[in-house]
């Protein structure tokens, strides 16, 4: 039976005009320039320099470090948001984590405030403190350098540092997790501390090493959670102080109410919707004291918060407008931080948010429709605010969820032009069950960061551990283990010259040799870095908000969670599949060109008359992924299957499997920009296709495109994928929403796992590039996450402009205008 009681699920009576607080906060949000916050870097450095005891266990050292920071963290109220607490000391802050890549900011300490692209403010005194006090301490102490020294600068690390083969994300984070807040809301942090203390007490007197380690873990949990409680007390004190000095009695009353909330939660159980919302947010702040702000995802908030909402509505303490105001305030709090991106990294990561994902709808643990009134309130808040973070995602079970729900999500996408993304419950639950997850756990999955899946609070998935450049493996197969960009250096195994091969199967075998070699290197480095994380970055605070660690007495970083996967995503999937198909078709089936001919033109970037002619043929007359072409479908399937089998043959340092996935952030643009020509007619420097999306212009029929992608879904893609589709906007949103919903359902029934949209035209994006001032709030889907178009680098903007645009009415590709063609 449905839990939906709303008369009108669109909640159209609630607007920014009727919710002036949200309107005001939203305006402030868009007017803020990010500021670098050095507070955490300052206090963790101070702690390690003056108070750390290396004789303690890693868990205890980490807990004390985090507690020290939280005790010193400033308690500020920057605006009229109803939720207390901030990730950083700034209204829109970029925190620095010296354990990871903070030192990359060093060269631009004096220029970051004024740089042309995405400036981040930093005061002169803070820059000086970083230069003279903080950064020098970390010279040889961040994850990358500890890995280098501990493992004697291994080959896999040197390969990673070339940046063009794979990215080992553990040098920058693990984060990427969905905790569970149910116990925290039910018992309060004091209840969780009490439980940890009891477990510790039970171990008193047991002297074996395992018991000591467990006792240390429980002690670490108590210390780190106490840090959150102290910070909440500081927030309460500050709110009380602001109440006493406020001129307006209304403001004073609001601060008094916030002080009361912070005194009640998260230390104690939440008793109201407002307390539950603020308790979750303060815990999110605590999580960011321990782990870097990258895809720390609150999860299924429409499910977790629903009992509090329902109770408050029933008892007359809350109405829909107030609930929406609180949800909107929470969304804006979640958006209060950005990543510190050095100018040098703009090419690869420019414009990325911190991607904290919220997951709505779908089915519950019992397999039944879980959509409720709060789902629609959260959808409306998302629609009204239209902000980049949080990354809102809608789960959809086409058998259990109503078509009204599907249409409403579609309508929100059409109105925001890009959010939320759609996730297929059937395919994703199947994928997680294929990894040994219990059915009720798989049904409780939430999205992490871009698109990755995890059973809420049960799976610690390190989902962005590896980003593998498939084009690197292809080039290495073409050139005997070398890449044009790295010159004559022998990188991978010296495989035979392809011109000597007699069949495509032989080339496929060579490709797999190079690919597998790269994967082995990436996994080896991931395991090394995992071991370093176990010593440097345990997560006792986050562990307390998971199912598993408290029962096992084991930190998440040592395998304490119920499920312990690692994720590996892939860049240039479509380009590589199309290249393989082009080789198979033209060299081995048609024999139109010899392999030597193709290699010669690839080396020469298809220059000269002969090159142009061959390029046109390869682009226009070879099988393309995203169509019904049999060869392309076979090669796409084989690639997915091989990657799945390869990763699954490994077990990670926490005892879990590797999950392949297909999302690319902005790396497909950055890595495409520096890669050579490929055999499907792509010229050197052209961007790769994003996520699992077919190459731009290669798939002219929408239905065939969706079917070709969908048939790859299910068990072999447990980490999920990002499929980008661009639709021409239509004037009648209701009719378009109907068609939109029908397309989604058909795609999901065919097995598609995820899809995300940009509802915009080539011309609009060209104009937005030319006149950014006209589109300050234009939000686009990149590959998994959303970004403001104006913040993206030039290559990424061009990639978005030239993405295939379909008309939803006829499912046909809309031809690229001449101006966009020039960028293609």
């Amino acid at each position, binding site marked *: 039976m449905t839990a939906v009681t709303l008369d009108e699920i669109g909640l159209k009576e609630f607007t920014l005009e009727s919710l002036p607080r949200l309107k005001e906060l939203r305006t402030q949000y868009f007017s803020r320039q990010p500021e670098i916050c050095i507070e955490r870097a300052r206090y963790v450095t101070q702690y390690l320099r003056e108070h750390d005891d290396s004789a303690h266990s890693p868990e205890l050292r980490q807990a004390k470090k985090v507690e020290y920071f939280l005790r010193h963290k400033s308690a500020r109220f920057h605006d009229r948001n109803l939720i207390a607490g901030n990730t950083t000391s700034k209204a829109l802050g970029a925190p620095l984590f010296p354990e990871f890549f903070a*030192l*990359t*900011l*060093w*060269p*631009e*300490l*004096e*220029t970051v405030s004024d740089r*042309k692209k995405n400036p981040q403010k930093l005061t002169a005194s803070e820059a000086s403190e970083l*230069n*003279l006090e903080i*950064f*020098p301490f*970390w*010279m*040889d102490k*961040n994850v*990358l*350098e500890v890995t*280098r020294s501990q493992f004697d*600068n291994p080959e896999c690390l*040197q390969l990673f*540092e*070339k*940046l*063009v083969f794979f990215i080992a994300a553990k040098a920058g984070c693990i984060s990427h997790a969905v905790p569970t807040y149910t116990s925290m809301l039910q018992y309060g942090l004091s209840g969780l501390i009490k439980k940890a203390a009891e477990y510790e007490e039970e171990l008193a007197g047991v002297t074996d090493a395992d018991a000591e380690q467990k006792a240390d873990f429980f002690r670490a949990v108590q210390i780190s959670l106490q840090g959150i409680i102290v910070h909440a007390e500081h927030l309460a004190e500050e709110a009380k102080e602001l109440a006493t000095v406020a001129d307006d009695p209304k403001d004073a009353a609001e601060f008094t109410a916030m002080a009361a909330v912070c005194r009640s939660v998260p230390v104690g159980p939440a008793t109201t919707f407002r307390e539950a919302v603020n308790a979750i947010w303060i815990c999110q702040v605590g999580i960011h004291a321990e782990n870097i702000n990258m895809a720390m995802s609150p999860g299924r908030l429409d499910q977790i918060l629903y009992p509090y909402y329902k109770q408050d509505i029933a008892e007359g303490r809350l109405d829909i407008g107030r609930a929406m105001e609180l949800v909107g305030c929470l969304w804006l709090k979640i958006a209060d931080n950005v990543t510190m991106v*050095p*100018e*040098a*990294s703009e*090419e*690869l990561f420019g414009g990325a948010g911190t991607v904290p994902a919220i997951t709505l709808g779908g089915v519950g643990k019992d397999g039944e429709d879980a959509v409720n009134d709060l789902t629609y309130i959260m959808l409306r808040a998302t629609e009204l605010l239209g902000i980049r973070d949080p990354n809102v995602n809608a789960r959809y079970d086409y058998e259990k969820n109503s078509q009204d729900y599907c249409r409403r999500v579609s309508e929100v996408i059409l109105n925001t032009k890009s959010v939320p993304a759609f996730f297929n419950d059937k395919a994703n639950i199947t994928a997680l069950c294929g990894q040994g997850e219990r059915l009720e756990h798989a049904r409780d999955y939430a999205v992490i960061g871009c698109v990755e899946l995890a059973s809420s609070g049960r799976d610690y998935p390190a989902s962005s551990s590896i980003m593998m450049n498939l084009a690197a493996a292809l080039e290495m197969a073409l050139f005997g283990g070398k890449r044009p*960009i*790295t*010159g004559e250096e022998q990188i991978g195994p010296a495989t035979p010259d392809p011109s000597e091969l007699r069949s495509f199967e032989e080339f496929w075998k060579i490709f797999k040799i190079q690919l597998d070699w790269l994967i082995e290197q990436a996994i080896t480095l991931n395991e090394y870095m995992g071991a370093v994380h176990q010593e440097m970055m345990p997560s006792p605070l986050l562990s307390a908000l998971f199912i598993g660690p408290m029962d096992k007495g084991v930190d998440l970083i040592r395998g304490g969670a119920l499920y312990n996967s690692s994720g590996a995503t892939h860049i240039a999937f479509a380009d590589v599949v199309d290249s393989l198909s082009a080789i198979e078709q033209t060299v081995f089936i048609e024999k139109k060109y010899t392999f030597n001919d193709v290699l010669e033109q690839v080396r020469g970037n298809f220059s000269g008359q002969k090159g142009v002619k061959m390029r046109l043929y390869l682009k226009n007359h070879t099988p393309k992924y995203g169509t019904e072409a049999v060869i392309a479908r076979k090669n796409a399937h084989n690639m997915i299957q091989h990657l799945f089998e390869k990763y699954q043959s490994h077990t990670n340092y926490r005892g879990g499997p590797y999950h392949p996935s297909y999302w690319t952030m902005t790396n497909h643009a*950055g890595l495409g920009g*520096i890669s050579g020509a490929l055999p499907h007619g792509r010229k050197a420097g052209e961007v790769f296709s994003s996520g699992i999306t077919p190459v731009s212009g290669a798939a002219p029929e929408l239905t065939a495109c969706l079917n070709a992608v969908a048939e790859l879904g299910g068990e072999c893609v447990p980490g999920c994928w990002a499929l980008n589709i661009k639709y021409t906007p239509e004037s009648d949103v209701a009719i378009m929403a109907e068609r939109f919903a029908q397309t989604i359902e058909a795609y999901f029934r065919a097995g598609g796992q995820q899809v995300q949209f940009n509802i915009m035209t080539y011309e609009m994006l060209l104009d937005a590039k030319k006149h950014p001032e006209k589109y300050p709030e234009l939000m686009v889907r990149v590959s998994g996450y959303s970004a403001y178009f104006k913040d993206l680098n030039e290559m990424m903007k061009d990639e978005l402009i030239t993405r295939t645009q379909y008309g939803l009415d006829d499912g046909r590709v809309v031809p690229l205008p001449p101006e966009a063609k020039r960028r293609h």
Partner: protein
Amino acid sequence: MFEGIGQELTEKLLADFRKCFDSELAEEFLQTLLTLMKVAFIVNHDYRRNIDTFNGRYQFCSEDGEVTIGVIFGNGRMKVVEDSIDAPHITVTFRDGRTLLNFIISPRQDILGSMLKHDVRTEGNLNYLYKFGFMAKQLQLMMPQVG
């Protein structure tokens, strides 16, 4: 900014340094930078604070083998040797002076871009490079601006 006897020399070196950006002296960028850095440490107290307690060993090599320079920071001093040094914290191998200039400094610092294009290769602790980049950037900001 610079006082006393070092002023004239520093201004001349800063002017030479600026010319590197106009490409006429790009090939001599490293030598100019290191000379300027050395003088700046002597004459500028604030700038010297960068190396008061810093120990770092840098090896710079050109791909063609023409340039091999070691830079050693220690005891608040900077020493330059035109040779290989033992146990550098980081070794930077560059294609030519222009690529090194783009890599380390400006007009738009492009450490990642240079590495992606393999104009410059590094081996060792990148944090030392970031610190060096900061010190070079400070000098760049001291350069006389063209009116």
